[in-house]
């Protein structure tokens, strides 16, 4: 099945009008020696029915987990049905970036609302229209801080998601910036004195996550203080965005940038993507931040309307001097996030509490197992680290029951041997937890 509507008569007519004899002639600019005879090793075309059957078969090769106890940067939440119904409106998902405002008031207003929600959730002044994901948002913030401050070192907490640290590292390396780790304390948090000592006058920014990768909350206010004291900026990330239903936003704690993964807001796990990079900033950096921005203005008749604004920051106008190279972003995921948050409203707090309760219950049950130990004492959200006699064996046992267990920390953190990072969201039921404990007994 191809999707070309051309009949033979159409093609003939059009060739005539185009003044060429055969379609082939339209490709005459391609030097003969490079003309392809056939695409090698391609399977034959399929009818829609066959394509559907194929993709069903592939899907069936996956094993559907009964339960997912891994978070570690991607979170299994219940997504209210409205989200899919509304995001599935063709006017939204078959549109391009809203370059023509008059035809795009829908997505522009929705993005403006999303920006407002993100600013409010993070306690910041402004937020952009989205980045690729939490990690690249953090990396862009890091690069931006180096540019703003004219300093070329960045400090990143070792309690930040290991893959985020790698992404920040790749962006820094490409720019020739140095990236240094800040160790975490025994409580599973950063220590503000250590941070203070580690900042020298080459440090552009300190980067942390709260909740951090271990599920622990950081004392953002203290770290922000340390950073400020040494003239460095603070980039605060977060892991599961639903935590913001109860956690004090980093913006209120003195962060200059808040970045994070917005997948938790109405976007399915999707085996890793598409996800949603949240990027929020203080007002004063508005003209320096990467990414699109929807802005409110008025039309010729004074009616309010929305446009992409401050485009002179962007690559299509500023080219190599742009604040970033980002062009397509994750608009539809941002739309989903906006709908999700508008659906929950203040219930986001209830949801966050439920996550806390579930994680507490899971943790308390696991800690009753022989040889299982709590690792960090800092307060946490819906994730926590425990050690057990044999982490791998635990996960294998759970796997047999169709359960995706905890995230094994040792490969990333050799210092955390046989440690597992568990996550329990509202999708995990008490009876599941009780069963898990029975399985592991």
């Amino acid at each position: 099945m191809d999707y070309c509507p051309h009949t033979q008569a159409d093609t003939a007519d059009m060739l005539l009008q185009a003044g060429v004899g055969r379609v082939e002639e339209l490709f005459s600019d391609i030097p003969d020696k490079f003309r392809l005879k056939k695409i090698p090793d391609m399977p034959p075309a399929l009818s829609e029915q066959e394509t559907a059957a194929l993709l069903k078969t592939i899907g069936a090769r996956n094993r559907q987990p009964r339960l997912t106890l891994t978070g570690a940067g991607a979170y299994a939440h219940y997504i209210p049905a409205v989200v899919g119904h509304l995001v599935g409106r063709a006017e939204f998902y078959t549109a391009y970036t809203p370059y023509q405002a008059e035809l795009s008031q829908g997505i522009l207003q929705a993005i403006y609302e999303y920006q407002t929600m993100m600013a409010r959730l993070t306690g910041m002044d402004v937020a952009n229209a989205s980045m690729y994901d939490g990690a690249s948002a953090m990396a862009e913030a890091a690069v931006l801080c180096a540019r703003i401050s004219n300093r070329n070192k960045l400090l990143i907490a070792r309690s930040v998601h290991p893959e985020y640290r790698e992404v920040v590292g790749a962006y820094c390396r490409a720019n020739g910036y140095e990236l240094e780790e800040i160790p975490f304390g025994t409580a599973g948090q950063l220590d503000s004195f250590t941070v203070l000592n580690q900042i020298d006058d080459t440090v552009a920014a300190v980067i942390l996550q709260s909740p951090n990768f271990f599920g622990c909350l950081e004392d953002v206010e203290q770290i922000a203080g340390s950073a400020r004291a040494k003239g460095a900026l603070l980039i605060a990330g977060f892991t599961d965005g639903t935590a913001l239903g109860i956690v004090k936003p980093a913006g209120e704690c003195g962060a200059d940038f808040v970045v994070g993964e917005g997948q938790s807001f109405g976007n399915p796990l999707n085996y890793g993507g598409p996800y949603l990079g949240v990027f929020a900033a203080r007002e004063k950096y508005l003209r320096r931040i990467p990414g699109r921005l929807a802005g409110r203005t008025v039309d010729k008749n004074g009616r309010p309307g929305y446009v992409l604004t401050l485009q002179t920051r962007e690559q299509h106008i500023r080219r190599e001097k742009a604040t970033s190279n980002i062009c397509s972003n994750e608009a539809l995921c941002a739309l989903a996030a906006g709908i999700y948050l508008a659906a929950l409203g203040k219930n986001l707090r209830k949801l966050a509490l439920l996550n806390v309760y579930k994680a507490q219950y899971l943790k308390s049950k696991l800690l009753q197992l022989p040889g299982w130990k709590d690792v960090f004492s800092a307060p946490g959200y819906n994730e926590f680290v425990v050690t057990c006699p044999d982490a791998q064996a635990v996960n294998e046992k759970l796997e047999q029951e169709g359960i995706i267990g905890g995230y094994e920390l040792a490969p990333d953190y050799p210092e955390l041997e046989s440690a597992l990072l568990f996550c329990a969201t509202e999708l995990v039921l008490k009876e599941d937890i009780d069963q898990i404990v029975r399985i592991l007994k």
Partner: protein
Amino acid sequence: MELIFEKSKTGRCAADVPRSDVPEIALETLIDAKYLRDDLDLPEVSEIDLVRHYTNLSRRNFGVDMGFYPLGSCTMKYNPKVNETLAAQPEFTSLHPYAPDSFAQGNLQLLHTMQRLLGNIFGMAEFTLQPAAGAHGELTGVMMIKKYFEHKGEKRRLILIPDTAHGTNPASGALCGFETVTLRSNAEGGVDLDHLAELMTEDVAALMLTNPNTLGLFERNIEKVAQLVHEKGGLLYGDGANANAFLGKTRPGDLGFDVIQLNLHKTFSTPHGGGGPGSGPVGVSAKLVDFLPIPRIVRKGQEFHWSENFPLTIGRVRAFYGNFSVIVKAYAYIRSLGAEGLIRASEMAVLNANYIKERLKAHFELPYDRVCMHECVFSGRRQVAESGVHTTDMAKRLIDFGYHPPTIYFPLIVPEAIMIEPTETESKETLDRFCNAMIAIAREAKDNPQKVKDAPHYTPVSRLDEVLAARKPDVCWKKP
């Protein structure tokens, strides 16, 4: 329309939360108050109001499903519905990125096959599917180029970029610390070979070439271009955003490209989502394979596994594995079309563009009058001169005729540019009607220029004050 915040009323909600089936613990006993937020200022609306709000917003938006969307350089082809349906299967959507490989054999097989098929179509040794969009792919490609030279112990500072290039190219170069140098186009819209020869020193890491370029023109001298770059040890980077022009007709790998990024959300029909998500796979020739980002998929017999054990890798460009569900759609598309369908897609895309070019060239200035590929670029200069009607006016007037305007004022080297990319999924009837509208507008520009300047006439808002928007940015609503 009112903002969702303005519709909010304390006590309402559209989504409820289950009652707790585990003990509820007073939050303050678990988390010190200093970590906790006071208020949570989110809109409170009922489900019906939520649905009406976003449904009515959607009705103020224009998508491919409503009409012709000839946005040049964006390949706004039709997005087959079956791909949406298939990618939305819970088997695909519900898996955690860290699910053990034993849970994800279907996904891994799909990704692995997709890499191989893209390799076949584009003649590249290997692909990574991780970048989240075209520009992200560019960044990834340039990072690899940088690492390649570092590994060779060479320090090259420059990247050459034609004046027709998309803004993401210089921006991606700059984001990797390169200095970018602009390469001139020649009179026929291709690379100025003399200028290239002049600029191409051993300080140049790469030429980032879009072929066909943003004029919709294929680089006839591609062999020479590649030779000039490679002679000096440079790499040839291909911006594959325009790949819809040549599927099955030629392969960047055969043309001498060392790296190429694709835009699945253009060439391979995944929808653009009002600005994303996209997917920007990067293909490399053999000499760059070692530098690909991690993780990569490794096949052992019938089993597939993730592996990170590639010491020369540039590392990661995002967390996890790429925009998986976008890739599923593109994969379904490629399998539906097969080789013959892909070839036909490019053939009809190119035919459509040439048809429009020929039908409109009597009415609008055509700066480069030669066979074009998948898009054609006019200039509105004649209209400006004759009646002060600008390209932007004509674009807005097209809206009144029911079309999404083409890309305008790009590429930068064409003044008052009108860049039309019809794509292969549009019928002759649609093109004819569109051309008729364009011709009618050209006539109107003469006869009744004010009508054109005042357009659009029937949209929920008329032209918006962009200057105000930029001068006093309001990007976050505050309760008045």
